């Protein structure tokens, strides 16, 4: 498996004229020039788990951009572990902090600040949802490794042998970790070329980004999620059909 691109290399490729992006405790923040404007940057480096403080800090950076206005795009760079797993994080309501970060990104995008995710390393579970998956368009670099849960843990929880799961993963992209699978699913829209400057590639992503959520359409096209798009579309259609009072719900037995 290909190695991940180091953050310094990534930033140099993104901002050849220099930048004001810094990393502290695995949290990335700052900005740099992009075409004729500036690009805000947030993210996670070093396969760091995302906990309360990190989510709070990154959300604050996003809200700063929204408050300033002006349509500045936001790049979310990700090389993270999963959410931080601890009693303290859950005691203090980690779900709210992670959701808050996702909401900040979703608000920013809705209010004219295009959000682009660039997965260059690892990411998993709740951290993946709160960062990468909360952007309008998610790209990745070769060597990135997203996952929901690592296969040995899946084997333990499902009580299936690891070899069996590895075997099954050859015929379906729906459950195993890996960049290709996330591309097939429609979660990752594009893979960038590490051999070319990243700045123009990011600018092109912003310019071409879809106005609506097309991930399920991509999943159908690519085969990773053959049914999701049409199921969602069918629900939308059925919701708009006016039905008579006779057409009632299926009844259910008590104590079922």
């Amino acid at each position: 498996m290909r190695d991940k691109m180091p953050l310094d290399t990534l930033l140099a490729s993104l901002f050849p004229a220099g930048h004001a992006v810094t990393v502290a405790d695995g949290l990335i923040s700052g900005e740099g020039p992009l075409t004729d404007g500036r690009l805000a940057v947030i993210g996670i480096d070093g396969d760091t788990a995302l906990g309360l403080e990190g989510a709070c800090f990154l959300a604050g950076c996003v809200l700063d951009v929204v408050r300033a206005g002006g349509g500045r795009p936001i790049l979310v760079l990700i090389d993270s572990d999963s959410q931080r797993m601890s009693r303290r994080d859950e005691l203090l309501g980690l779900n709210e902090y992670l959701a808050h970060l996702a909401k900040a990104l979703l608000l920013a995008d809705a209010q004219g600040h295009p959000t682009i995710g660039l997965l260059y390393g690892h990411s998993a579970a709740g951290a993946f949802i709160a960062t990468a998956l909360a952007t309008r368009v998610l790209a990745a670099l070769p060597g990135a490794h997203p996952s929901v849960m690592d296969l040995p843990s899946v084997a333990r929880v499902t009580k299936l042998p690891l070899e069996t799961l590895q075997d099954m993963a050859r015929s379906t992209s729906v459950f195993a970790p890996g960049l290709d699978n996330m591309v097939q699913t429609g979660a990752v829209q594009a893979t960038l070329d590490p051999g070319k400057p990243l700045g123009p590639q990011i600018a092109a992503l912003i310019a071409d980004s879809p106005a609506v959520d097309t991930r399920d359409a991509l999943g159908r096209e690519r085969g990773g999620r053959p049914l999701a798009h049409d199921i969602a579309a069918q629900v939308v259609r059925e919701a708009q059909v006016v039905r008579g009072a006779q057409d009632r719900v299926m009844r259910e037995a008590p104590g079922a």
Partner: protein
Amino acid sequence: MEKLSFRHTTRTALPGTRASAITGVVASGNLEVLLERNLAPDACHVEIDTAIKGYAEVWAAVVADFVARRQPGGLTITINDGGARPDTVSLRLAQGARLMELP
């Protein structure tokens, strides 16, 4: 997984006009039963998808017993089974039939 299919003829149709009903849940030791009124009044088809193989004869007996007692003519009954015991199966089938008789 094992798929089983039983076709029965009944003396009468199950009373009622309700088009469909559902009962139960797919979980360990439980099952889900979908009933649809879409056959000729003396026909009853039972389709089973079960996680536990090797009990075809037990299923056949439980279904035959249910059909004989409740005369569910006109119904297609489709089951998703999570490994329920025969008495749970009988209970769900009876619950389902009762639902289909409701106005």
